[in-house]
């Protein structure tokens, strides 16, 4: 191996990149976070990937490639979070390696982090080997600390984000909450590596946002987001769909977050799966990997929670999500909830995208209006009778 400085690079996952950054900094490494997805990264990625490969793969390949090209004097450990599941997700890292080597890059290695998969007697040692390859040899408490701090930062960032999307449609001066939020993200990112400090900053910033003049109301149309994790969790991949909806005056909720995704996949995997099968009964009775089952389950759960519509965001050609999409048409009919499927790829343009979102939001708003009117008429007719 060369003597170049070892640097880590990780996929960007929305605002939580700040947490991953701290994780490696605590372990004493340099980290370079790829830039947010933009036209150049997409172009790079698309031109070097197999044509029908997942869009997330193409994005990540593009991001990594740019990181490598810009820093030829460093040696990179590219962290790839993957799973060994029925999805292509499980084969990202060998392909990165082969494609980037083929392009002539030598200053990198791929470290893939995956869960424990059977057979267990092989899976568990493999998991720990990978973990050590990821973190290097450190005192156990340093590693634990890194996990704890990163976990807290993820949590804090997600809380801030939730607050932001709650306040945008309610704020008095459009754009004012976002300004505070951006400052808050920076503060969390550079927060000292202590749980107390992170908590304190979080509370201060939440309060600041809360104090920003706004009007609380609960009659806004509510839209839930379901779909493939990487498209959903990184705002630069989904053209900031959440923010856009919020500015259109919608109460928006995203079903997958780094915290619940990790919990459901790793810690509560068994009960999570059982729950999904129960909710999806009659629609999808089998494990299909990716986030397809979640998309169906969350659509049903959103309906039950009184949401007015659901948007399914998926990479074009995504295997589980296209399967889910076909089943969602039935769910949508049976449960009487509008579902809009949006497929993202390199050709998704900002303008067309906004138009579709607006049309959907308008439809939801008028449906809601009709419903309230009906309810009113009913209530009035009842009073007349009295």
């Amino acid at each position, binding site marked *: 191996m060369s003597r170049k400085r070892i640097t880590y690079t990780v996929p960007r996952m929305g605002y939580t990149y700040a947490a991953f950054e701290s994780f490696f900094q605590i372990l004493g490494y340099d980290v370079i976070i790829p830039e947010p997805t933009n036209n150049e990264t997409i172009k790079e990625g698309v031109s070097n*990937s*197999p*044509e*029908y*490969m*997942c869009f997330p793969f193409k994005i990540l390949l593009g991001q990594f490639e740019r990181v490598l090209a810009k820093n030829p004097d460093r040696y990179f450990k590219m962290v790839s979070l993957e799973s*060994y*599941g*029925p*999805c*292509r997700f*499980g*084969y990202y*890292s*060998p*392909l990165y*390696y*082969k*494609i980037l080597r*083929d392009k002539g890059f030598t200053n990198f290695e791929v470290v893939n982090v995956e869960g424990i*998969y*059977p*057979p267990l007697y092989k899976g568990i040692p493999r998991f720990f080997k990978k973990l050590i390859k990821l973190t290097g040899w450190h005192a156990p408490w340093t590693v634990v600390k890194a996990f704890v701090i990163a976990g807290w930062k993820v949590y804090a960032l997600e809380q801030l984000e939730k607050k932001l999307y709650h306040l945008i449609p309610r704020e008095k001066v459009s754009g004012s909450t976002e300004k505070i939020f951006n400052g808050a993200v920076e503060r969390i990112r550079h927060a000292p590596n202590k749980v107390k400090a992170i908590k304190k900053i979080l509370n201060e910033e939440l309060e600041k946002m809360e104090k920003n003049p706004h009007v609380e109301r609960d009659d806004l149309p509510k839209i839930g987001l379901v779909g493939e994790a990487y498209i959903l969790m990184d705002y630069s991949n989904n053209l900031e769909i959440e923010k856009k909806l919020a500015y259109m005056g919608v109460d928006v909720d995203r079903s997958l977050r780094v915290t619940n995704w990790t919990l459901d996949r790793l810690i509560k995997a068994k009960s999570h799966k059982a729950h999904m099968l129960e909710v999806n009964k009659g*629609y*999808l*009775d*089998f*494990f*299909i*990997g*990716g986030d*397809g089952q979640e998309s169906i389950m969350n659509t049903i759960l959103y309906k039950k929670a009184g949401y007015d519509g659901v948007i399914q965001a998926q990479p*074009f*050609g*995504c*295997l*589980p999500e*296209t*399967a889910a*999409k*076909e*089943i969602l*048409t*039935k769910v949508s009919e049976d449960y009487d909830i509008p579902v809009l499927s949006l*497929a993202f790829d390199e050709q998704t343009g900002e303008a067309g995208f906004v138009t579709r979102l607006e049309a959907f939001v308008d439809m939801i708003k008028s449906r809601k209006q009709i419903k309230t009117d009906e309810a009113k008429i009913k209530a009035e007719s009842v009073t007349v009778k009295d």
Partner: protein
Amino acid sequence: MKIGIPRALYFYVYYPMWYGFFSSLGHDIKLSIPTNKEIINLGVSHSVDDICISVKVFHGHVKYLLDKKDVDLVFVPRIASEEKYKYTCPKLAALPDLMKSAFVSDAKRILTATFYTRQGEKPIFEAFEEIGRQLGDSDERIRAAVKTGIRYQKLAVKSLRSGHTFLDVVKNIRDLEALIKKPVQKQRYTVALAGFPYDVYDTYTNGDVISKLEDAGVGIVTTDMLDPKVYKHYSKYMIKDLFWYQANAAAKGGMYYIDSPDVDGVISISSFNCGISSIYQKLLDLYSKEVGKPVMHIIVDEQTGDAGLVTRIEAFIDLIRVKRGDGLVAQADNLHGTENGVHVRGI
């Protein structure tokens, strides 16, 4: 009862087993017709637009059978796994659910059970028992029928290993033993087809590559003819096994043929909009670059069988001829030349 079997997807792998099972129980089997324009149109209009072409075609076959009044049930098995710890593509794992959503009013006519094949015989028995019970057959007869099914499947595998294509197997399903004994004629050139069986053998959607090659006097071998044991060692090159049995077979089988001295070139076939086959295509590309054997890709879509394909196959054959030192096909040959008694360019 009359059971409809769609001639698509896993039909091209497990038909012998299904044939053996249903026919030994005394049920009639109605196969859908080979894919044609009508089937494709049916499929396209009953599925979501960004799903892969193979699954769209499957929709078409199912619809075709559902429309036949005399077909009582349409068999849509859920092939969940074909090897330990390996699963099938999410769309295949959700196949019965997809069909039930696509054909809501006929959902009750879809006969299904979950299969874990190649993991010993027990799971196969279990799946068939579920089906047999739905059909109202006694356990004893079911068990005997499963045995027949498995015997048929074994014979089919033997036929494949002896160099016959799955299309031959379907044609000779009643007498597979004779087929196994029949020798396969060796041609001067051999081209290997790597891909999912349903893409390799669906002659309509892939523009009939097989006959085009055969007409040109080229012998073919396919990846499903190989015993998985022979290509096991390619895992190392792939770093990590793919998660799907068929994709591994296509990737590793393709590499095996790339290395094989008896094979002149490899054609990989994949479905439009199938991300899984784009992985093995890339792997075969990279590998052939290292080894230096020609590899061509055909991506199957709604209109593969156009003139462009003919030209590409001709160019590919030329490339092979040049590699073997035979030179290009002369213009005169093109008009009436024959090789091994077959028209060289009679495509």
